């Protein structure tokens, strides 16, 4: 082991400590948590997890979150694919301004938009539906998806398009059967980032839902404040929110940086 490996090791330990503590808490009984400090759970219990998996308000929180995240990812990608193609292949009136305008939406503080979003989605009758949250998250996910896909598409030589036209492909057929498979890594990364930013966002998701589409994050905050101090339960719910991210991240591990660099490394 080289001496400088110490730096990443210490850093990763620092990252894992709070996560370890959350996991440890989730296996403790409330009595043990409030009774004093213990580094490992003394009496292992699965009660916290059992409660989440048997209580509909809890497990529906997860289902709601997964539903709107999925809808959002599908809408974002479907809209972003042709747009990214246009930005990477064509020059058209105002394209550069449009590109920056898209990015500005990634900068808008969610707090600024919380109330107007509530009014807008109430007015169009979508309040408390999965679609409302999915559409609202498009605000920052579509610009992100366009940026990432544009980066990947610009790496594909233009000759590919031209050869396909010479071979008699129509545009939709070329796009669906040749072009998208060519940049499938980019599509995967864009999907991952849409999933991720929709999954971690709380403020808009909470503002736009009440009962029917309430996300897990909102269930957690309401539990934290109302039901006294059920730390074990809160910790178990937290651990369960980490799992989906931990699973999908493995598949995009080599592309994470490229995604964050908006396809521009």
């Amino acid at each position: 082991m080289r001496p400088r490996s110490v730096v990443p090791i210490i850093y990763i330990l620092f990252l894992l400590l709070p996560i370890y503590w959350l996991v440890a808490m989730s296996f403790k009984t409330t009595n043990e948590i409030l009774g004093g400090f213990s580094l490992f759970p003394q009496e292992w219990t699965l009660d916290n997890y059992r409660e989440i998996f048997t209580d509909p308000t809890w497990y529906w929180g997860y289902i709601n979150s997964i539903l709107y995240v999925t809808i959002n990812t599908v809408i974002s990608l479907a809209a972003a694919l042709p747009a990214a193609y246009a930005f990477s292949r064509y020059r058209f009136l105002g394209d550069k301004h449009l590109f920056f305008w898209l990015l500005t939406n990634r900068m808008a503080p969610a707090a600024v938009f919380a109330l107007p979003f509530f009014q807008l989605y109430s007015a169009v009758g979508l309040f408390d539906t999965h679609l409302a949250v999915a559409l609202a998250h498009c605000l920052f996910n579509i610009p992100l998806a366009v940026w990432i896909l544009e980066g990947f598409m610009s790496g594909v030589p233009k000759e590919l398009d031209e050869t396909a036209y010479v071979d008699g492909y129509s545009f939709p057929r070329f796009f669906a059967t040749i072009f998208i498979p060519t940049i499938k890594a980019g599509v995967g990364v864009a999907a991952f980032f849409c999933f991720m930013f929709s999954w971690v966002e709380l403020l808009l998701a909470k503002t736009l839902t009440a009962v029917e589409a309430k996300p897990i994050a909102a269930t957690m905050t309401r539990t934290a404040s109302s039901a006294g101090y059920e730390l074990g339960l809160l910790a178990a719910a937290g651990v369960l929110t980490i799992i989906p991210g931990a699973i999908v991240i493995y598949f995009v591990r080599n592309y994470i940086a490229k995604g964050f660099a908006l396809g521009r490394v």
Partner: protein
Amino acid sequence: MKTENQRGWLFVLPVLLLVAFNALIPLMTVVNYSVQETFGNNQFFWHGLGWFEDILRSERFHAALGRQLFFTFTILAIEIPLGVIIALAMPRKGFWVPVCLVLMALPMLIPWNVVGSMWNIFTLPEIGLLGYFLNDVLGVNYDMTQQPVAAWITIIVMDVWHWTSLVVLLAYAGLVSIPDAYYQAAKIDGASNWSVFRYIQLPKMKRVLTIAILLRFMDSFNIYTEPFTLTGGGPGNSTTLLSIDLVKIALGQFDLGPAAAMSLIYFAITLAVSWLFYTLMTKDEQ
């Protein structure tokens, strides 16, 4: 070379409609509120730029803005150099690379309120691992619900924990794109480690670091959920950042006019600084 083709607009149309629906309508609502006064009952009166003047003069806004700037610049000053140092120390190839990348990316995939709750549980005195260690092992008196300094240190450490990996991943991506030939040439010239960093690695990382600073600026300037879950803006108002203050005014006190004016000023600041970075970032592309 790109071809001139107005068909581009057709392709961009769905994106335009979806984003405009979400961005322009709420923005116009905010603009609308920002120039009106209301006494309830849905009756509104023209108030001109009064709210803007009030906000720009209000000490409460200055204080929140000051705290926000302090927070953003502190985390940038820590996360950017730290991220570069970690990226430089990471192995370039082999079994450990994907393991490092996955473990480092983990904090970024945790919902923001869970990040706040997790750090809350982690730092509780007597019960939390860190709180217990500081109070009972090291004998430091630490309670973030009572001491403003402790609350500040905690939210800064939390943000460093949450987002330094973003800088690491970007810097690392810049580093691995450097061909081996550069290092060999430097070795033949007898370049020191510092010269290699200064003249080979840093220039190659310039672009990704600009993106890292841009993203970290935007996200930390807009931060809401994590500090709100952790400290609730307290103790007192000591960690009430801009977003937290804004939500207090808009949803807590329902002062729509001042909240809207504050939103626009807030958005304008973010926009101006981000535009600066964006211009720097795209300058090299042309």
